[in-house]
Every structure is written in C-alpha cells, then in structure tokens.
C-alpha cells in the first residue's frame, strides 16, 4: 500500500486545475454518468445523488489509505469539466478509468486530464505500468489509447485489456503535448 498523498493533489498544469473528488461533486458526477450521450461504455449508474455521496464517502477511506485517487478536472476558474480515476493498485501498476468529460469542455481538456492523471500514477506514485480496459465498440477511445502502443494483455468478447509502460507513455506524451500546447 502506498502512502496517501491526498493533501498534495492540487495540480495546475496544461491549463487545467485538477483536485480530488469531494462529496459536493456528487451531482456533477451523476449528471455526466447518466448522460446517454456520454455513458454508452460506462458501467451503469443510477441518478441518485445521495447514493453517489455515499460512494464518495467510502472512496474517501480508500483515498486516505493511498489506494485510490479520483480526480475532478476544472478550468482555471474552477468550472468542473470532467473526471478520471486511478485505482486497483498492485506492486507495479495502476488502473486508469472513469474517464468522462462534459461535451462542451474546451478542446483537448479530456486528453490533458488523462495525461495529468497518468503522470500522477507514473511520477508521483512511482508505478512502472498503467492498466486500462476499452470497450471494442468505443472506437474513438480505442484509437486514442492504442496510439500510445500499449500491449494487449487480455481480451473478452466486449473489451481489450491493455498494459502501458512508463517509457511508452512518456514518449507519446511528448508528441501529444506538441499538438495540445
């Protein structure tokens, strides 16, 4: 288990402001996760904000133990744009997921937030690999992730399971930042 870094997560980078989720974010999370335009490939969420608050309370215990980090990405004025999460840590890798952004986010915000979250996993938490799963029909996200040249480590009827090394992430991040910044 890694030491909790909760108090250090207040990241201003690439024109985004990233912090850890709070109970007050429940309504925003539910609004995005129940948006039919955005949630096609997510695990189902009901529209009960109170249940989301309860989920965040339980998550905060995992966060305090350094087992999981759920990020809210905002613009520099504090307007919430989206979210993503690092979880299911093992000795050398973390899983990244729950990646969801408002459709009217500024161009590139979702990608910048993905880079920031994975930088946190690789650089702050010092993991050497990142795991993620992508639905086979989610072609746009699949194209984005595969451009990092990850390895497919498993496959089900519905999903690919990938492993991405820190080196490959760093190499490709440079290219992406050339486009984004």
């Amino acid at each position, binding site marked *: 288990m890694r030491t909790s870094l909760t108090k250090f997560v207040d990241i201003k980078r690439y024109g985004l402001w990233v912090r850890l989720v709070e109970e007050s974010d429940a309504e925003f999370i539910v609004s995005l996760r129940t948006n039919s335009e955005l949630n096609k490939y997510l695990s189902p969420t009901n529209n009960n904000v109170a249940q989301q608050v309860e989920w965040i309370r339980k998550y905060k215990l995992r966060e305090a133990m350094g087992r999981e980090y759920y990020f809210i990405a905002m613009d520099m004025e504090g307007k919430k744009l989206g979210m993503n999460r690092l979880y299911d840590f093992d000795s050398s890798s973390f899983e990244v997921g729950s990646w969801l*952004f408002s*459709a009217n*986010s500024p*161009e*590139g*915000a*979702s*990608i910048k937030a993905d880079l920031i979250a994975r930088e946190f996993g690789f650089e702050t938490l010092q993991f050497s690999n990142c795991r993620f799963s992508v639905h086979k029909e989610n*072609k*746009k*996200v699949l*194209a*984005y992730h595969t*451009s990092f040249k990850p390895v497919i480590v498993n496959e089900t009827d519905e999903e690919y399971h990938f492993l991405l090394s820190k080196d490959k992430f760093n190499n490709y991040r440079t*290219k*992406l930042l*050339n*486009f*984004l*910044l």
Partner: protein
Amino acid sequence: MDKEQFIKKFASQFEDVELPNVYETTDFKSLSTWDSLTAMSVQLMIEEEYQVTVTNESLKNTIRVIDLFELVKAKQALK
C-alpha cells in the same frame, strides 16, 4: 499534395461520417462527432501522412476542410 486524398483521409478519422458527407467546404467542427479525440486523430494522421504538425491553436483557426488542407500544404512548403 492531393486534395481528394486528403479529404478521404480526413473523413476516415470520424467514427460515424461517411465519406460522401465530407466535402472541402464542410465546417468540420460542426460535425456531430467532432471532439478532442477526433481532433487528436486528425492531428496524428496529418503528422504521419504529411510530416507536419498542426497544433490545437492552428485547428481553432480553421473552419472548413479546405482551410485545413491549405494549412497543411503551406506548412509543407515551408519545410
């Protein structure tokens, strides 16, 4: 640099747009599936196929497919 080829490659970056629906005068940012990930796919395609970099800032200043084609052509000429 072939314009028709460029439009074909550009259109292939969209998840749900059939080629006949993309013309040189298409305002590509108004297409329903245009978003950050599609923009990134287009930028990668341009870099791989035409060896020039189109930043987000440059994309913001282009409206029609033909504007993007002209931008790429101009960048190539400067190389």
